[in-house]
């Protein structure tokens, strides 16, 4: 049990988040659930995905690239990196011309 249930919504834009929203849209459309239920599911998703990514996901990777731009605004770090080379767990390499990393504090400002 946690004392307060307030989580970022940023993972709603991930593939898994979008897939969930599509599914809920479909269920609302066919009248199988109420929009309020869908909203609660999304709130539960925000919590679960944050916790699972923090606790359960052990995959990791290293990457190297050229830091082009960085900023820190409203407790959010943003990095724009060019010519990036990712080294994945399975030793595979993935390259990208540019990437953007948006990094938020695990706890929202003022919640600690």
């Amino acid at each position: 049990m946690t004392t307060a249930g307030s989580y970022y919504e940023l993972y709603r834009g991930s593939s898994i988040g979008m897939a969930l929203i599509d599914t809920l849209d479909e269920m609302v459309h066919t009248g199988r659930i109420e929009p309020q239920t869908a909203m609660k599911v999304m709130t539960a998703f925000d919590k679960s995905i944050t916790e699972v990514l923090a606790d359960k996901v052990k995959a990791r990777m290293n990457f190297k690239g050229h830091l082009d731009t960085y900023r820190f605004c409203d407790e959010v770090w943003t990095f724009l990196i060019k010519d990036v080379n990712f080294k994945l767990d399975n030793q595979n390499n993935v390259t990208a011309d540019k990437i953007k990393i948006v990094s938020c504090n695990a706890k929202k400002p003022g919640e600690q």
Partner: protein
Amino acid sequence: MDSNNFEGEAPIELRSLEEVEKLVRRLYLPGPFQEVSKIQDALQKIQRSQEGWRFADALLQSHDNNVRFFGALTFLIKINKDWESLSGEDANLLLDTLIQWLLRLVDGGIPKLVIRKLCSALVAYYLRPDITWKQPIRHLVQCLNEGNVVPNNPGEQGPSISSMISQLSLPSILVILWFSRGLAEEVKASGSSLETHKYYERVSANIADTVEVLQLTMVAVNHPGSTLFEESISCFHDWIGFAHRAWIDKALELDPLRPLTPLAMVALSNDDMYGVTVELFTDVLVNFPTFLTPQDLMSLATLLTNSKAQDIIARLKRGDHDVETMSFARLLIAYGDAAVQDLAEKADVQQFNQILVQLLDLLSCEGYPGVEDAVCDEALEFWMTYTEHLIDSLFSAEEPKPAWMGGARQRVVSVIEACWAKIRMPSSRVTVTWDADERASFGNFRRDVEDLLQSSYTLLGPDIFEKLAHLALQSLQTHVWSDLEATLFCLNALADAVANADLVDQILTRLFDSSLFADMMNKTLSIPAKTRQTAVTMITKYPEFFERNVQHLPPMLNFLFRSLEAPGLANVAAKAIASTCLTCRKSLTSEIGAFLLQYEVLSTLESVDAYVKEKVIGAIAAIVQVLPTERDKLGPFSILVQYVEREVASSKSSLQASKAEDYQASAVCALECLASMAKASATPDDVVIDLDADIQPQAQFWTEGEGAALQAQVVRIVKKFYGEINWNSDVVKASCQVLRPGYKENTPGLFVFPTIVTVGLVMASTLQTARLDYVLDTASAMLNRHPVESEFNMRHAATSFLIHVLNLIHAMEVNRAIDPDVNASGINLAAKMIPRYLHSMIRVPNIEKLFETTLVCLEAPDLMPKRAAADFWAAFVQKHELSDEDQQIVRAAMQQYGPQLCVILVRQIGGDGSRSELDTFAEPLKKVVFAQPLAKQWLANALDHEEFPSTNVGPTEKRVWLQKIMNLRGARGTNNVIKDFWIACRGTEYSYAYK
């Protein structure tokens, strides 16, 4: 109602209380899903009817607790859903009824479930906006104390809560606590933040009464057992949860609740109360440490370091991981995280120092991490936080560095030492007993230690690197192989962190000059495979060292080639050879002969598999690639291709012996070796391109000159296997991979093939070809970049590809076997043609089939063809630099298909499409708006089209939306306008996904 018969479609009709009661009992009996669902529907109908109030009251009179529960539930539902049907007088009567029921049931041995549901109904009542019930806790205490419903007079000063509480029975006190908990929980359960904010004030008004109750119940000794205390702690916990939300959103004053903290803390010393109290404090420390005052934290520190705490730590170190010790460990770690700054900066305070010692002790408990020891990974996370805090302080502090920094750094060294001991690999006798999860957990801990080492380097600098290297040399001398493995693992972890090349060279030279490689090759020493593997991995971690110190290459490569003979090491050694040869290729050209000989020996070994051959042959090809002239490369490449021919010969033998699997395996091996050579022969990305250099003299070497025969030989091998077994996906993929690296080459080479080779491979594909999508993607890759080929050849190739794609689409339609992947790859290929080969594309016969297919794909359920079709149209509708004649053809195509495209896009955006696809549809729409003069007209017609899917938006909304879209002229804001329109079309209830 015949309640015994639930079959059939007809709904159940309920007329009397008896029928309802019977049905409720039936609901709680096991039964088929359809029956339960039907009963629920009937009961819900009753609950929502005007009669529901009466039934709720009547059901509570039953002797069946399930029926009573249902009665209380019905009250709750009626309050939430049908409140408007009550007058002010009715509402007052309802309150009296609910309290009366509480009084009647509270001491009757009725299950908690029923009483709590009644409390929930009272909470729901209290939170209605227009009720006159003030100070509900005081009122309830009064009623319970009097044994009947007393008038609700909020202004009246009666006896104090504390004096009344002491007279109450345990069940009555529990009722007060459950009601209070319900108030706090309701805010958490409320859906929208608006709703939550509405509750804050009303719920906050009860803090003082709750605290007064809890101050008595948390110290109550006149009630035997721990139920009262546990419920009190849970109630306090819920109110902290409420306070957290209210503090964030409404800046709630926390002081009124804080006096309860010391009362809860006392219970940490009481065995009966320990579990629930530890949970409370762990949660507060993790999620809301601000709630605790500095005095609370210091009191906790004292409790965490007392003799009982030290006993628990001693038990943990002995490997006693039961509920009590684990919950203590988590509390300790949570405390560490919450007070990390004090722990780092005030380690001279005795309690803080002791806590740090204990947290360090958590890293040296008995057992392997993730297997027997469940606490060390959590403790390590604290030490990561600690290290990061030190790093932050190091950068933010001015010179001289704070005095505490030295001691703190030393502590991180101790942590690394403890972790080093923990990551040592057990013997294989132990690891074979582990299951997959345990292996993964142990591996994860080692990786966490890697992270710690990388972070700590910023803090500790080269000292740690030097220390580890020294330790490795010591282990090497003493032949303690598990220690050596752990140390090499740590050195590997630091590879990306150490930036000082001189230091790395100096330290690694000592290590590589030692007996490391010789010992690892020595078969008489019983060195664990893992130690050898980690030693091999070390080579791949420090490629720059070998680049700078080429004298170390021969013994290292000798070691690696010898390692290929050991089955457990072969793959990792092959990979190390490949990466080393790639990095140090320029220093190894003189060794090509030796490498070829090594491969010769290697290929005769039965233990060597295809992966190893592929890696090593690629490694040699990488060295050949840097030879100065194409003629120099011809010899070594010829030998390598001869080695590949051996696999071809082997495949033939297998075929003759009717060994189909061996035949395919040899074919795949041959093709993958060629693919590996092709990849390694590509010019490195970092090579300087001399734009003025004349490449003509060698341009024909591989196509018409001395190298032509060898290139033809390679093509022959590819064609042979691709022709014979193109139903094997590995063969198809490897064949394509032989061709692909050449596409981006600016200079000729053995693996830079004429376009005709790719055209031949693509045209030979049929619907039966495995990975047909990959074949078409290969064609796209060729069209995308093939700088050395003439424009004429490229146009010819593009036209051939498109004709082939159209034939494949036709064949799929005829056979009614649409493969979405092939569709997507085919459309992608067409989209890739548009920028450079539109002139050829629009002249392909039957090109209208392509337009029609892409329009169909835009509405088809499969995602990839849909995306490809959207990309195609986004590319096609743009303005292109073409001759007048071509412009006319493109314009005619747009006039024909533009309106239809807009109808489809608008239909999808108007609610037919999924929300996740809106960005996909936005791209072609933006391009249409930007580039097509008739866009506004097409879109207006599409919005008025009879197939527009929504009636939620009228002509005005459509007009406004169109105007917005047109004004944006394809700018990025279009995506948001599209999303808003989609929600408007679907209905505002779909706005739930984003606040």
